[in-house]
Every structure is written in C-alpha cells, then in structure tokens.
C-alpha cells in the first residue's frame, strides 16, 4: 500500500500526503546502529567501556519502567495526566549521563529519564501529575530545575543561569560548569527559544540547547514548525548545530559531552538536535490515531533505543543472565516503590495554598488565610 493510499484510508481522516522529512544520513551522528553494531564517526567517538554501556542499559530500562508505571497509575486514576517519554529514553539518558555534577539542567515536563540521571527520586516526578505539588524535588540538590510547562520558557532561564556561571568565573577550563536546556521541536517556533539562542550566542554563554525532535508537537508535524532541519538553524544564530541519532544512547552521550565541554571551556553554546520519535501519545489525554499513521510508528519501532543496546551487549557477550536478572529486579523494585509511594502521597492541606507565595508573608495574605481557617473551623464546630 502506498503511503498516500494509507493516509487516505477510511476512518483515518488524514489526506495530507506530504512525507516526513527523513534525515540525510550524512548529517546524523550515529555510533550504534539499530542492529546493535558500533560504527565510527569522524567527529565523535564513544571511548568508555562496556561496563558504562551496561549502566546505560540499566538507565534505559528503569526510565522506560517509570514511564510504563506512570501510564498505568494514570489509567488507574492515581495520576490526572502523564506525559510519556516512550521512545526518547536514549536521548535523555545519553545527554543526562554526559552532565557532570556541577552542571545544571533545565527540563520540560517530559524529562523523566534526565531526572533519573540527576538522582531525583522518580516518585517526586509524579506529584505534578497527581496534582499534589508543582515540583517535589529540591532543584539545587540535584542541579535539575523544576519541570517547565510553558513551552520554551526554560531556555531563557538556562541561558541566564549560564550567564551567572560566567560571572562566577566558573567557565573557561575543564573544571568549568555548563548548563543544558531541554526542549522539543515545537518549542523551536517560540520567541523565547529564539531569544535564548541570540543571548547565548552574543554572550558566549556556557549552555547546550538540547532539542529532542520527536517529530510531533501534539498533533502538528515537524514540517509545520520548520522549513529547514532544526540543527541548521544554529548557524544563523552564530553557533554550531549538530543532529544526533536520539535513539542511539552512545551518540547522544558523545555529542552532548562534546557540546558541554565546549561550553565549559568558554566557547559558547551548541544546538543539539536529537532525532527521535514520540512513540506514545503526547500525554495520556491525547489520541494520536487522529493525526498520524501506524506505518510511521512501525518504522520507528525497529529503531528502538533499548533493543539496539541489548543487541550490542549480547553480541559482546556481556549480557549475562545475572545482569539481566539484576536489572529486572531493580525495575520491579522501582515499580513497586512508584505504585506504593504514589498512592501514599497525601493531598495538600487546604491552608497550604497560602504557603510560599512570598518569602516574607504579607499582612493581607495572612488575613485571607486566617479568614479561611476560621471558615473551615466553623464547619467543625457545627459537626460536633
């Protein structure tokens, strides 16, 4: 069946025949093929051993498990909504593992894998989606900012933070700090992202712009966001851009590490476009069958970010049964932890909404809180 015929299939309702732009192979940095074979690249290499790759495998499995459990918790009514990262595990784990302790990450609301690499207890990721908090971890403990829902806004925070690093004198050597800003293909149309590119460029700010191009901004495809490959936009802003196979954890690591090192040494920003695919829905409230075709999904399934690492380790003979059992057990443990801790998350108390509006409380807000407390108390009196 031709692509066009399939798109026009009954019940599909989609007659747009324009194909998804395929990345020119020469532009895509890849170090591990979908079949699990290592390949060389003239500019990037992955020099760490198989132990590290086994660690990546563990991260990928745990990341996917967080996602699977969270979707299940949403289906069971424990979460209001969940933004799945299915398919983007390698881009997140690879880039997250490239960060050093002193580096700082500014995520969107989908960076669950990055959060794992920053040591955030995944239970804390659920609070926002359960509706009991708006970010349950200490950003400065993990150098991992709160999730940002307004598309692209965090790229400016990342750039400003990087300007602070410059003013601290913490840039210009191998010991320097760098910042990574996460965002998606849709965000590249936002003014804030373009302003962040300009500011980072003119100030040589130590920031890496890490765009996970998962091909879809909810229902709107990439061709509605850009006429040119996203990574090529960097050139117009005056800094390098590179497209990496976002489903290749080794390449994602290597490219991000090079960009971070470049930033920490004082050479300014880099745009990394991680070419990947959102295998699931935008969120649990979304229905992708209304706007995309199954053959596209099938084509990406064979590029799965976890399968290729497994194939590679298997071919290397380092995928022993004990290791697999350990990873599986750890994933089970994590899943149990998520389910138990999620259900145990208490609703915030009514009066907690008045907390932390200001550093120093105001008389007017105190008055409003007191009045509401008295109002609530009046029901208790009636009840007795």
């Amino acid at each position, binding site marked *: 069946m031709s692509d066009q015929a399939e798109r026009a299939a009954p019940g599909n309702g989609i007659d747009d025949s324009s194909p998804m732009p395929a990345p020119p192979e020469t532009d895509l940095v890849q170090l591990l093929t979908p079949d699990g074979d290592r390949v060389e690249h003239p500019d990037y290499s992955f020099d760490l051993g198989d132990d590290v790759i086994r660690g990546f495998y563990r991260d990928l499995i745990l990341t996917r498990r967080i996602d699977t459990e969270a979707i299940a918790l949403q289906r069971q009514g424990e979460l209001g909504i969940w933004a799945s990262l299915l398919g983007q595990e390698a881009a997140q784990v690879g880039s997250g593992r490239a960060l050093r302790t002193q580096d700082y990450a500014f995520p969107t609301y989908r960076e669950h894998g990055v959060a794992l690499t920053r040591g955030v207890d995944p239970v804390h990721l659920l609070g926002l989606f359960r509706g009991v908090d708006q970010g349950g971890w200490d950003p400065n403990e993990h150098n991992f900012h709160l999730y940002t829902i307004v598309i692209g806004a965090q790229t400016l925070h990342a750039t400003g933070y990087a300007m602070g690093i410059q003013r601290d004198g913490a840039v210009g050597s191998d010991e320097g700090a760098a910042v990574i800003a996460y965002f998606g293909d849709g965000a590249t149309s936002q*003014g*804030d992202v373009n302003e962040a590119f300009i500011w980072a460029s003119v100030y040589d700010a130590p920031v890496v712009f890490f765009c996970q191009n998962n091909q879809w901004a909810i229902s709107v495809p990439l061709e509605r966001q850009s006429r040119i490959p996203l990574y090529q936009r960097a050139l117009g802003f005056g800094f390098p851009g590179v497209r990496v196979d976002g489903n290749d954890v080794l390449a994602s690591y290597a490219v991000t590490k090079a960009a971070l090192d470049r930033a920490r040494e004082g050479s300014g920003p880099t745009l990394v476009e991680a070419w990947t695919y959102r295998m699931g829905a935008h969120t649990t409230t979304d229905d992708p069958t209304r706007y995309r075709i199954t053959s596209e999904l099938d084509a990406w399934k064979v590029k799965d970010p976890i399968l290729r690492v497994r194939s590679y380790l298997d071919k290397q003979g380092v995928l022993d049964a004990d290791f697999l059992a350990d990873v599986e057990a750890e994933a089970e443990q994590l899943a149990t932890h998520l389910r138990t801790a999620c259900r145990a998350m208490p609703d915030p108390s009514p009066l907690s909404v008045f907390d932390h509006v200001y550093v120093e409380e105001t008389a*007017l807000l105190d008055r409003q809180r007191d009045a509401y407390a008295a109002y609530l108390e009046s029901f208790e009196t009636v009840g007795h």
Partner: protein
Amino acid sequence: MAITLNKGLNMGLRKALEDDPKVVIMGEDVGKLGGVFRITDGLQKDFGEDRVIDTPLAESAIVGTAIGLALRGYRPVCEIQFDGFVFPAYDQIVTQLAKMHFRSQGRLTLPVVIRIPFGGGIGAVEHHSESPEAYFAHTPGLRVVACSNPVDAYFMIQQAIRCDDPVIFFEPKRRYWEKDELDESDEPGPLFSARVVRPGTDLTLLAYGPMVKTCLETATAAAEEGRDLEVVDLRSLSPLDVDTIVASVRKTGRAVVVHEASVTLGIGAEVAARVTEDCFYSLEAPVLRVGGFDTPYPPAKVEEEWLPDLDRVMDAVDRSLAY
C-alpha cells in the same frame, strides 16, 4: 543635598551595586548610554560590563535570563525602557517569575527587580505613556511599588533590591526631574507601606507615583477654600498597606483614589473595595475614583485632557464633600 528623582534612582542603584557584589543591572541601552532616561548613568563605567549589562533588544529575554541569574544567586535589576514595552516580558513575569517560589515550595527565591518608567504627560508617541501596574498587582507572587519623589526613589530602589521576592518597581517618568532634599543617613520606613504625606481632616486623597504631586497641589488649592485634605502616598500597590489607608479614611470619612491608569479595574477599584469593607460605618460618601478614561492612551496633543489633573481631582473632592 538637592537631587532629582532620576538622580535618586541612580544613586540608589550605585549604592546597591557597591553594597552587594551579586547585584547586576541589565536592560537595553543601560551601559554606555546610561539608559534613555540616564538612570544608570556612569554605572557601567564604574562597575563593568559584567554587572551593568547592555542586552540584546528582547524584553522577554531580559526577564527570562534575569530569572536564570537569580537561580544562580544573583540579584538582577532589569530596566524595561518604557511601560508599553513590558508586554513581551509579561509571560515570563506572570507564568515564571511570580510562581517559582511557590512552585518550588519555598526552595527557590527570585530576588529580581523590574524597573518600569510609567505614566504619561511627557508628550511621547504611543506605547510610551502607559500605566500597566494593575496587571502586575493582580498577580500573586509579585510585589509592586511606585515611588513618587527623589528621596523615596533613592531608598525604595535599594529596599526593592534587598527584597527576596520579585518586585515590579514603577517610576513616574514625568517626575524624573522633580527635586527634593536627600539626607542619605535617614532611616527609611518599610518598603511595603503607605505614607501620609499631608495630614488633613476633611477627605483622604489616595495616590501613587506621578499623581501624588497632583494630589498635593490639589490639597494646597483646597486649603485656600478652607478644605483640609489628607494625602496618602500608597507607595506599595501589592501588597496594599490597608492599615494606613483605613486609618486615614476612618478619620476623614471620605476617600478619592487617583491614578493615571484607566479607571475600570484599576488600583482604585481595589482600594475602594477595601475601604468600603473596612470603613463602612465611617464613610460619609462613596469612595470616588479619578483616573484615565477607559480608552487607549490618546495622542500626545490631547493627553492633558485624558490625564487626571488638579481640576479633575478637585471636582471629585467637591462631589465627595457634597454628600
């Protein structure tokens, strides 16, 4: 020493830069030029380009990167060149700056000051004479203040910079060249407080920023007719210093709120509601409002008709006293 209001701000900013190495100033043309109103005159020369930052021309990024600098431990002071140009930054201010302390359950603080020259009366082209303060005062998490005189300008800007919450700092641009005596050794009162700037017994005029002078002139004129008006400079628009407002109105029994901003849903509406709630049995007349009309800010040649002036304030005073 006699200083102008813009000199008071300049001196206050200089003092803040001297007192705390984490203070940075950022905005369009704030460096070599010293800002279009010269508020930052000479500061880049003395404190360097890393602390007095000429930025690219993008207001959202001025505020967005200030947030990032604050997260790294800095205390950024942003200059928005004119009131009408703050709107590209409105998203960053409202969705990010105002909420981040709350969202982080108090773990993050955002000591960012956003300076905005506001109001009309200088014969400017459109977008240079706006009074957008109510948009910000309506947003929980922000603090909003307006200075009205050179002495307050000097002290309030330093207090705003020391505040750990984000502060939107409004400057009455048509009063930049007003003069007053400054004694730098004076102890200023709390930043988020109103002040009775002229005591009186017959009626309370409540104003802030550029309209404080207009109200003082009205009180002087009214005194010639035997009317003793009290004038309160609100200074803090969020939070409002309700105690000072209420004490004054309970004493006089009458209140007129004056601002340049359009009347409907302006600061005056909030003040009127608070006064009605807290002074109901003391009121001799309904709280009246004098402000800009509910129209876009008009062309300069007709702005004096649009802006409240002594006569329009006096008309409201007469109407209040007629009850």
